[in-house]
């Protein structure tokens, strides 16, 4: 996990679990230097991160297994530093340096 940073990016780690790692090069942990602000100059949010991941990190063409109608698809939990993102403001949460963002596909088998 590289910690190289500058004023214009935010260093974070992004994890995938429950099978979602298959969409991201079969790698469960990624170090990401996220642009600190979006195209319109607003601080980077989780919503921006999700869009960024689709455009820059996803290796699989099946984007709709991750995003549907511009939102994270049903059946995926988003965790900010191991807490459900509902506790933190969901898509509007502003990413902080060294945050860990985890995407987990909920399971139903048994």
């Amino acid at each position, binding site marked *: 996990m590289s910690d190289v940073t500058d004023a214009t990016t935010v260093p974070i780690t992004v994890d995938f679990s*429950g099978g979602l790692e298959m969409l991201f090069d079969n790698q469960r942990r990624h170090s990401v230097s996220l642009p600190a602000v979006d195209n319109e100059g607003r601080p980077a949010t989780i919503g921006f991160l999700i869009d960024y991941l689709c455009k820059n990190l996803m290796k699989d063409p099946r984007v709709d297994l991750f995003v549907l109608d511009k939102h994270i698809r049903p059946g995926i939990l988003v965790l900010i530093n*191991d807490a459900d993102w509902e506790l933190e403001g969901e898509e509007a949460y502003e990413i902080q340096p060294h945050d860990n963002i985890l995407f987990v*596909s909920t399971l139903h088998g048994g």
Partner: protein
Amino acid sequence: QNGLSRRLTDDEFERYSRQMIVPGMGKEGQLRLINSRVLIIGAGGLGCPAAQYIAGAGVGTIGIVDGDVVEVSNLHRQVGHATSRIGMKKVDSLIQHLRGLNDLPAYISHPFHLTPHNAADIISQYDLVMDCTDNPATRYLISDVCVLLCKPLVSAASVQKSGQLIVLNCPPVPQGLVDGKYAPCYRCCFKKPPPPGSMVSCGEAGIMGPVVGMMGVAQAGEAIKILASALHVQSENNESTPERNLLQPTLLIYTYDLESAVGPYSFRALKMGGRRKNCFACGENSTLTLEGIRAGNPNYEQFCSVPTPNHSL
């Protein structure tokens, strides 16, 4: 209450001695287990190991629901069955194994799938429910009925190399109560099912035996602590409950990696929220009723868009 003050029989005392001497269990915890009624829904990869430890621990009444029969492809992970019982109803096969392990509990066979029509009748007979099923439609149905009947729910799931476990609706409080902190239901944590195309079952995607086994054993562990320590009984003062990880429960996720040994990220504990005010099932304006469910409202198959209803366990 009567059952909690009786003496243990010699049989019980000898059989359960090693867990009764564990600090926190004692005779009181053991009698609570003996007086408890647990429903295990699903006699597959989760239900088999879960049932072994529930039966071993001496839970007094153990019901099992499953409409499937034993197949040879089950046996790498469904360790309560046997090659000689292929073709037998899973419920009967598993109960045969459990009786051999411990014949003190009463075993109740429900050898058919749980449906919106029968769910409330079955679940109402028990104190605690273990969701060991394999499809989202049944998971939402179980949770909804547990909310309406005020039953704690220990839920687990597993596919391929991943497992998940969470204790829900514990302690249970009536539907619509939102003037404080209460434990969430399955819908509070998992609002919507994944679209059908993104879902994988153990049959299609495969499953490693020890992964689903870990989750099943962990489920038994959670059920035993709830019943032995009466964590599902609302205490007079709510003070101590937040420390019990119940009102904002932990979703445990297990990630098994064939390429590396157990490591720092094999287990992760994720903090979920409490009861949601606007939850479809337990929230303040919920219109969910047992009568509605029985009559087909909501339509679970449609909600989960499962194309074929033959996996509705």
